[in-house]
């Protein structure tokens, strides 16, 4: 491919939540900024901007990825999935989101989009994930509100719902 000039903007084409997306970026533009500023998709949050906090996690070709450690030019032709894809329609919550709500698995909500995307990617590949595995996935994220227990409870319950198992109606506050 031709070398992309540092001071120019270049069009990249990829799939975003199942629909074709185009955005013009400099080579140095991070995927977080391409999504938020270029495409107005502000569900993906920017926290530490060096890969530690996990708030910006999205799925690229089905695998979780820190959008802040991904150059936008590197996702040319890839399938990117963000938190905006989780709700089946406006006003309704996806299975993971509903479990998070039942379990009070968020307070300020800043870290939530990233955690949801990590769990979404993981459970798609491993629907029978154990509590220990889900705890490790959540360990790749920083949450300074909840103490993690309700997040883990929500993840375990969402996994069961996605497998088609029935769950207790009473929400646990972990």
């Amino acid at each position, binding site marked *: 491919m031709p*070398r*992309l*000039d540092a001071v120019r903007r270049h069009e990249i084409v990829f799939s975003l939540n199942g629909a074709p997306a185009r955005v013009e970026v400099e080579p*140095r533009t*991070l995927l977080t900024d391409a999504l938020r500023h270029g495409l107005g998709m502000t569900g993906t949050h920017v926290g530490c901007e060096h890969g530690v906090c996990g708030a910006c996690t999205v799925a690229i070709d089905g695998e979780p*990825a820190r959008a802040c450690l991904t*150059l936008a030019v590197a996702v040319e032709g890839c399938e990117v999935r963000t938190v905006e894809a989780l709700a089946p329609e406006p006003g309704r919550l996806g299975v993971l989101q509903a479990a998070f709500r039942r379990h009070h698995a968020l307070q300020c909500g800043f870290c939530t989009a990233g955690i949801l995307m990590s769990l979404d990617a993981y459970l798609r590949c491993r629907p029978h994930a154990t509590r220990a595995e889900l705890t*490790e*996935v959540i*360990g790749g994220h920083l949450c300074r509100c909840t103490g993690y227990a309700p997040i883990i409870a929500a993840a375990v319950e969402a996994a069961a719902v996605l497998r088609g198992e029935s769950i207790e109606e009473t929400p646990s506050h972990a």
Partner: protein
Amino acid sequence: MKPARFDYLRAASLDEALAAIARHGDEARIVAGGQSLVPMLNMRLTKPGLLVDVMRIETLRTPRRENGALVVPAGTRQAILLDRPHVADELPLLAAALPFVGHVQTRARGTLCGSVAHADPSAEIPLCLVALEGEVHLRSAKRARRVRADDFFVGMMVTDRAHDELVEAIGLPLRAPGTGYAFAEVGRRHGDFAIVACAAVVDGRRMRLAVGGVADRPTARDWPLLDGTALDDALNALAWDLGAGEDIHATARYRRDLVRRLGRRVLEQAAEEARRCQG
């Protein structure tokens, strides 16, 4: 922060990547999974003029067995190796250590060769490569060469790689009969860089211990089979020789203590496993 400006080349072939780094010398940096380099770009600790992305090069994707080693090319992501069927049989040390490398989310992107090229003295993959006496396969437009892991790591984030060379692959020796392997580390949290990490390889004649996080590079020692106070003395001498420093995470004394204790633990565990498979 955001990276400073750079040109970007998504190389379609090995030759294209090698030609680019030959032309641009130390102005160019190779990027693979980006899990070490992009944080440094974001913090502007490095400002390359050109990034050469090697992740679309088909021939650098798939590990292959070759002369008793698994040759892992530049494009193999850590998660791919960890998900490899029977990885615990063919590379027990890597199977034990890889879960400590970052998190699920970073292993899904980060590569083994990228971690080796980055050469953080606390990183687990360089440590395993040294413990296993593996090789680094370097290639430039002009030549290819293989360097022993012990000689590749020169100092903190400094390696034997020349500016026009790519870490094309690493060669990880496969499990040998009658040999035991063990890994352990202590860090502030799982997924953080280790304060001290230890990897041991023990067979019927020899024990080898590699230590990360203390000296400016992963460092290994070989001993005949030792136990009791002879092993204590050997570990104590190693702990002092590594020249532990003090930082925000740990005192030098604590690091030396971890070398003695984790070192003994992994050597004993590997020796026990070696006895079992000789059994």
